[in-house]
């Protein structure tokens, strides 16, 4: 599903060169729930940005959802992201001027083949999956942190992506809400077979996933299989 080969990312300013990632070789098979851990600044978020085509590597090759990434033209990458990838962010990144329903619909706005009516219906279904069908007309600032993250997950799901990339999805939540969110992700992976890559600082959360990769100073230092989830 995701294959990274000899990936390198170097940030260059006028005077300083920072190596964020080096020599990363990683394959995430279809349907796997992978967590990525490491200290701050080790390159986890950079890795996720590259996987999500939000950033381009300085060297190396990659394949996402079976598609080799040959060029980094804005329009092509936007299309792949829209069709294949869903994102869940630590700070939720909901758009405050839009209602919950409008926030969830967002990815389908950029698919011309989907009509307004279909968009609405699919948004409602996605919200039902995360247990927020009664909040469609609410705005983000009227929701708790956990509810906002559930809306974010619904938004990530609406396009039926093959891959979900979650960057510290429980980072801003208390343990109870964090558990709820983690359960939603686990259910998604087990029931729908969605490939999930999750960056986390939380060892407990990481231990619930199938595989754990650790990074340090931009390099992969370990790769452990934890479970083999039975997929429904």
């Amino acid at each position, binding site marked *: 599903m995701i294959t990274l080969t000899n990936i390198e990312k170097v940030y260059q300013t006028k005077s300083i060169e920072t190596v964020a990632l080096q020599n990363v070789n990683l394959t995430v098979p279809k349907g796997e729930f992978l967590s990525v851990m490491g200290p701050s600044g080790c390159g986890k978020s950079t890795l996720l*940005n590259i996987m*999500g085509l*939000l*950033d381009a590597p300085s060297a190396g090759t990659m394949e996402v959802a079976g598609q080799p990434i040959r060029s980094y033209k*804005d*329009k092509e990458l*936007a*299309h792949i*992201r*829209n*069709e294949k990838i*869903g*994102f869940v*962010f630590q700070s939720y*990144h909901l*758009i405050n*001027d839009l209602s919950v329903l409008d926030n969830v619909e*967002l*990815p389908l*706005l*950029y*698919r011309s083949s989907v009509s307004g009516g279909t968009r609405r219906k699919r948004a409602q279904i996605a919200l039902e999956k995360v247990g927020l069908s009664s909040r469609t007309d609410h705005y983000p600032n009227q929701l708790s942190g956990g509810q906002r993250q559930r809306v974010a997950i619904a*938004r990530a799901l609406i*396009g039926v992506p093959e891959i979900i990339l979650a960057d510290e999805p429980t980072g801003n939540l208390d343990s109870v809400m964090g558990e709820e969110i983690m359960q939603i992700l686990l259910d998604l992976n087990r029931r729908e077979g969605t490939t999930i890559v999750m960056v986390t600082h939380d060892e407990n959360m990481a231990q619930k996933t199938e595989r754990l990769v650790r990074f340090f100073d931009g390099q992969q230092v370990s790769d452990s299989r934890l479970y083999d989830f039975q997929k429904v």
Partner: protein
Amino acid sequence: MRRKFFTFISLFGISFTLMVLMVVTALLNHFLGAQMPEQKLDRILYVNQLWLEGNGSINSSNPSYYLLNKYVKPLKTPELVSIYTEQSAVNAYRNGRKIIMEIRYTDANYWKVLDFNYTSGGPFGKAEVESANLVAVITEATSLNNFGTTDAIGKTLRLNDRTYKVVGVVENIPAIRTSSAADVWLPYTTAQTDLSKTDYNGGYAAMLLAKRTDDIARIKKEFYDVVATIPLPPSAPRRQRMNLQFTILKMFADSRTEAFVREVSSSTDNYVSVPLFYSFIIGGMLFFMLIPTINLVNINISRIMERSSEIGVRKAFGASSNILVLQFLFENILLTLVGGVLGVLLAVGVMALINNSDLIPYSNLGLNIEILLLSLLICLFFGVLSGVYPAFRMSKLHPASALKGGSK
């Protein structure tokens, strides 16, 4: 709150600028454009200035009846020539109440060159002028002031110790129409001045009406050829004692706009450049619009930077840079159109205030369809211009940086 504040500032800037532009345009149109009774402006030339220069001194005044009657009236190219006076104030008394009125003395051709709207009666004609009949045409306001009604035909008005009979009542003329505005019009033959005097200076003016717009150039040529033959006036005894002679005599035949440009530029050339004047006006307006446009560009850039994480999210979920640029431009154009509509409403309000105040008596400012369409076009132009650079900046935002709220 911040976004609402930005939006308010943007809307205020656009609507206020547009309001000012529309009011100024309406005022210019009211002053220089074809309005009742000066409807045939494209065929009328005004002769209302005598310029004498010599030995370091300049004398600028209205020409006399003698000068106009001798040299301008006989011109062959115009269809009609009308001689009239500038306005002068007189006092009248009605029921012990003093009423100040502006009067103008005219010939019969005056009523053919100009197109007054009569509410009753009509103008005085050639026979009445030649017979120096004591007849008057008055405005509705004058009629109401003096008689308490606009139905004043046959009523009498006492002016300058003479009693005039009202033969026509016309709609009020905006005071800004300096060539035609007055409260009362009387035959020039009833003016208590000696029309046989050969002085060059006087309080008179002339209008030359062309048969066709194409004739204007020929009329001017004939006019200036005739003016060149006018002998210099004899100097007054005082000037003769000081050995001061006038050596240059000029009169001008100008369209309404040319007359205004001449006054503003103090030009004494026979021909003044109206296109240059319009270039200044348009340049001034564009410069005036530049300030809010630059302001809007800055506000838009701030708005984009504040919305960078939203832009990052949209990009993450599949919006290409082109789509976001179009979205932003659309939002901006919508904002400027809303500002434009507000500007139009404000302008209508301001014009109504001016019309109902005594700022410009009897003013009748209004929006015409050309100004309205031009204003909306300007709005659209505004919207695109003030959105293009910020949209370009936004399209360059890197998704990963944008999500962090960065501007790279």
